């Protein structure tokens, strides 16, 4: 369980505040809020990249700040929309980078690592792309293999920062359906920040709302888009 209490987040000035945030394994939660409201900052705070300005975040009963970088990497995987491909990096090698926290200094993957990577690729139905160059993928494929990379990391939590930002409607729907399946099948706790209010409403996702004033609230799913918009403004 990932739990934050009395949390104030921000880089130097406070951006947003939450009384309590709780994420269980198997949760699939949409993080919604306007641009600049602090969605990314919340994700960075909850994943231990920036310390909270105030309050306590605990992961499986232990203070988040007491984890080392590589221990955290075995707990939380992170995906954003920013991966544009790297020259000379094949899809399989990219997904294998998800195994980094389990590798030795020399970074040599074992057979077990290769199998985990292949399994992750198959899970997102991108097994056929494994020998392709990451630079030659379409936006949709790139997002799929990024999710595979995170799955290969075999973490109990997965945070995604606007992973659907550059995708068309069809791919957005697919990615969200895939993530829902991942949460259910693999019992991974997922937070997904997104601007896709329609999809969020349609899929009945539980929400974490960041209001314009900087209040962060848990909310059960909302069935009406207008009501959701009103809550955000």
């Amino acid at each position, binding site marked *: 369980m990932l739990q934050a209490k009395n949390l104030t987040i921000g880089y130097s000035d406070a951006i947003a505040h939450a009384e309590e945030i709780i994420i269980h394994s198997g949760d699939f939660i949409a993080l919604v809020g306007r641009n600049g409201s602090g969605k990314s900052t919340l994700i960075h705070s909850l994943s231990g*990249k920036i310390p909270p300005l105030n309050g306590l975040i605990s992961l499986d009963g232990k203070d988040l700040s007491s984890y080392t*970088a590589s221990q955290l990497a075995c707990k*939380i*995987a992170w995906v954003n929309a*920013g991966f544009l491909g790297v*020259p000379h990096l094949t899809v399989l090698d990219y997904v294998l*980078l998800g195994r980094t*926290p389990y590798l030795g*200094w020399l970074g040599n993957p074992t057979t077990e690592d290769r199998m985990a990577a292949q399994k992750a690729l198959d899970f997102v139905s991108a097994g056929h792309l494994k020998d392709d160059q990451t630079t030659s993928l379409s936006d949709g494929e790139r997002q799929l293999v990024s999710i595979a990379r995170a799955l290969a990391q075999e973490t109990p939590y997965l945070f995604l920062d606007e992973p659907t930002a550059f995708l068309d409607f069809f791919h957005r729907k697919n990615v969200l359906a895939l993530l829902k399946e991942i949460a259910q099948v693999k019992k991974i706790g997922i937070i997904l920040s997104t601007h896709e209010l329609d999809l969020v409403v349609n899929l009945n996702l539980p929400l974490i709302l960041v209001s314009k004033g900087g209040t962060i609230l848990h909310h059960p799913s909302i069935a009406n888009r207008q009501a959701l918009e009103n809550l955000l403004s």
Partner: protein
Amino acid sequence: MKPNQSPFLWMLVLGVSLLFLFIVYLKAGAYSTTWGQMLDAIFYPTDSLSTTIVWSFRLPRILMAFLAGGALSVAGMHMQNLFNNSLAGPDILGITSGSSLMVALWAMTGWSLLGTSDVILLGILGALGMGIIMLMFAYKLKSVVHLLLLGLMLGSFISAIISIVQASSASQDLQRFVFWNFGNLQRVNLDQILPVGIVFFVGLTLSMTQVRSLNAMVLGEDHAQSLGISLRAFRLMGILIAAILTGTITAYVGPIAFVGLAVPNATKLWFKTQKHGLLLGANVLLGALFLGLCDLLIVYFEPYLSLPLNAITSLIGVPFICWMILKYRYVAS
């Protein structure tokens, strides 16, 4: 058979080429030795002229060329990875200038830091200082173009200081510095190979501990961090390795341009991989081969024309980098 399909075969090819170059080099030069004389000189050294030529001139010179080429290429690989840009390199980001300044001050004014006149230590400290300054700029600036411009500016600034030192120093000291500045392997002696070799192997060993991080860093710092890489430790180690390698080589053979920039790029284009364990080995071999060949060229031209090493590496390196920018537009990434 493409290098990315059978990388180890190509590593072997590089290794054999290096050995071949080594043998050809020992025989090359104005004073001609026969194969028999050369082999005798190596295995049964006497006080004959051919022994002196091989042991005091040719052997240290080619060994230093190999060490310098390998070390600068590895340093360049670290810099390009650290700054996540193909156009980074010890000479572009001012690391080499840092060493130059220290060596210039030492050579022309007799000034020395910490009371030491150990030229290696001065070279390393200069490189380390500039490395840390550039790293601090890298924290402030997200734009790589700005960072490269700052590196060029700092390089010019240091050149200005060096020219002031030059202008006010005795002609004998000045001449020594100018020769050093051309980059030269002519004055290398066998006693220098051991300390440089030790630094080279320390740098290489430290590099091997960083392979996993180097691999993850190609995804950018944010992703590397989420994959469990401690950025602070990684950056410090990268700068440290680049500085000890560049500083040592610069102190001994002068500021050699473009090796650290061109070779790691050529290696990546050739082997088409982001596996840094492989790239590390390939950089050592290709860097050594490249600088060894440049120096062989100088040796062949020696009877007719004195070619500064720096001029040769630039004459080959600059067109390559220009071609790479035009073809791959790497500057934008």
